[in-house]
């Protein structure tokens, strides 16, 4: 939540790799669990920050498949309840729209 205050200082311990790090989490952009864990270690502590840093949820499906998993991983890395991690902002269009169709907008033609 935006109201959630996060103090961010450099990590003191070195990053520890885990066995399941190579597993794909974001199917569209092929982002692994390890990359997400590393991003959190690097200071990306919200879903939007991880998204901007790694492109998780920026692919064709716009996070429909992975956002819950990404959130769980961030929460786990930060040792906070998952409910405290806000889901990435919702954006138009909620389905991909070809530019030719977006441009073909009847309201404007009628003017």
């Amino acid at each position, binding site marked *: 939540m935006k109201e959630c205050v996060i103090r961010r200082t450099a990590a003191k311990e070195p990053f520890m790799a885990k066995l399941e790090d190579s597993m794909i989490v974001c*199917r569209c952009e*092929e982002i692994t669990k390890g990359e997400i864990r590393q991003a959190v270690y690097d200071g990306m502590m919200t879903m939007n920050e991880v998204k901007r840093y790694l492109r998780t949820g920026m692919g064709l499906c716009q996070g429909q*498949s992975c956002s819950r998993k990404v959130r769980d991983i961030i929460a786990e890395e930060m040792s906070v309840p998952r409910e405290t991690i806000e889901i990435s902002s919702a954006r138009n269009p909620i389905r991909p729209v070809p530019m030719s169709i977006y441009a073909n907008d009847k309201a404007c033609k009628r003017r």
Partner: protein
Amino acid sequence: MYRIENHPILHQFDKGQRVSFLLDGKEMEGFAGEPIAIALRNSGVLVHRYTAKRAEPRGIFCAIGRCNDCVMIVDGTPNVRTCVTPLQAGMNVETQYGIQSRGAAENND
């Protein structure tokens, strides 16, 4: 091969006309109007594309147009969701490598 000929509850499935189309230049068959992915699956084709970064195979996952994993190049347009795009006679369907056809992807290298 995977078609349900006689279903205990739904009995027969109303299918359109049998049509042929191309997959990577090879002639395939399916029913007009059914999703491209269904026609492919019936012919045993599971791999729709290879991913951009790791070149891993992908196919149908959600089958309702949400996940975008089943995208292929259809009549030259990449990223077409084959699970919700109706098959038409003579369609040219190509396996997608990253966002390109195999030939185009190889020319980049």
